[in-house]
């Protein structure tokens, strides 16, 4: 990981990688959602509304994976003082919040036809809403930190502490009785029939690649911004 800490080397890899990830992700999403929304079979119990899963599950996964990424980057920033780690954490926050929001909205729209309610304060739904609020707080804190300078340790500590919510979200359906159902896919195999499972996996991979492309784009934009600022400072000093 250390070799990527150099911004110049990072840029030389990130620049050509971004379009591959972005277009690859878009292609996989299309390959999953066109059959998933129109062609694959419906569910024996829920009927057509099961198709919301192909957006809801990738969104939930990216919301949680996003914060895990923020936590790992924050740890690297705190321990090794990698300047790029703080940039990575800040770049993840906005798409992470976006996908968490998408998970909440799609879940709410799914809950009405199946459970009979848009929202209930059960363990899974509440902990996911808390993740969304954590993202908003992180975005506010880290953009304020970026104004103060590159040595922003407060948002890094917040990023690590907030990670405590991730296992809580994951285990909420096991620890507590919830309205939300338990895990469908675990170490013991899948409780989703293969004909419904493959669009889910392809769509999750596709959205993940797209997420990575967005993060790389945001990181490059942030590095470019920092460069411009440094150049302007030098010009005014001359």
């Amino acid at each position, binding site marked *: 990981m250390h070799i990527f800490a150099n911004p110049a080397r990072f840029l030389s890899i990130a620049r050509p990688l971004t379009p591959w990830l972005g277009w690859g992700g878009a292609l996989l999403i299309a390959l999953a959602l066109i059959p998933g929304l129109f062609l694959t*079979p*419906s*569910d*024996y*119990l*829920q009927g057509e509304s*099961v198709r919301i*899963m192909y957006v809801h599950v990738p969104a939930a996964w990216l919301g949680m994976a996003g914060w895990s990424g923020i936590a790992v980057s924050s*740890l690297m920033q*705190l*321990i*090794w*003082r990698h300047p790029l780690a703080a940039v990575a954490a800040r770049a993840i926050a906005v798409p992470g919040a976006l996908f968490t929001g998408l998970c909440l909205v799609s879940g709410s729209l799914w809950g009405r*036809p*199946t*459970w*009979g*309610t848009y929202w*209930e*304060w*059960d*363990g899974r739904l509440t902990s996911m809403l808390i993740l969304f609020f954590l993202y908003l707080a992180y975005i506010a804190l880290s953009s304020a930190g970026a104004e103060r300078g590159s040595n922003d340790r407060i948002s890094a500590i917040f990023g*690590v*502490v907030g*990670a*405590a919510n991730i*296992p*809580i979200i994951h*285990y909420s*359906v096991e*620890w*507590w*009785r*919830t*309205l939300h*159902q*338990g*895990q*469908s896919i675990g170490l013991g195999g899948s*409780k*989703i*029939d293969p*004909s*419904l499972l493959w669009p889910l996996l392809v769509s999750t991979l596709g959205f993940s690649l797209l997420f990575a492309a967005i993060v790389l784009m945001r990181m490059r934009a942030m590095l470019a911004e920092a460069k411009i600022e440094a150049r302007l400072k030098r010009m005014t000093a001359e």
Partner: protein
Amino acid sequence: MAIKAKNQRLVLALLALVALVGAALLAMSALKDQAAYFYTPSDAKKDHVDVGRAVRLGGMVQKGSIQRLADGVTINFVVTDNVETVPVRFQGIVPDLFKEDSGVVAEGSFQPDGSFVATNILAKHDERYMPPQVSMKNPAMHESESLKK
């Protein structure tokens, strides 16, 4: 022997992480009973839930227990956790997924006679997803994990 600053930070960060996760797990296990979203019939009996208090009762709709009364809006059914059962009465519209031998969460209160009057009915489904043809054929998909709890 001098310890490098970054190694010191690594050790401190790992210790902080262990403490943090430990604290979160302890807090959550303490919450275990309070954070439950509904009472099962067994819990409701064990905890002597007060008559008239607004609570949620969850479990399976007992097979063959749904009765629709002649007025067209009232239904009676029995919630079971395979140990205890509670008869429930509800007036209103139930979700499409409300079925016999399927999960249910009823919001309402217990009556003096031990029955439950619901003001709202939610359906709880399990972690299985499959096409209708498969649900008939594949016995491996018949076991529901999450609703057994």
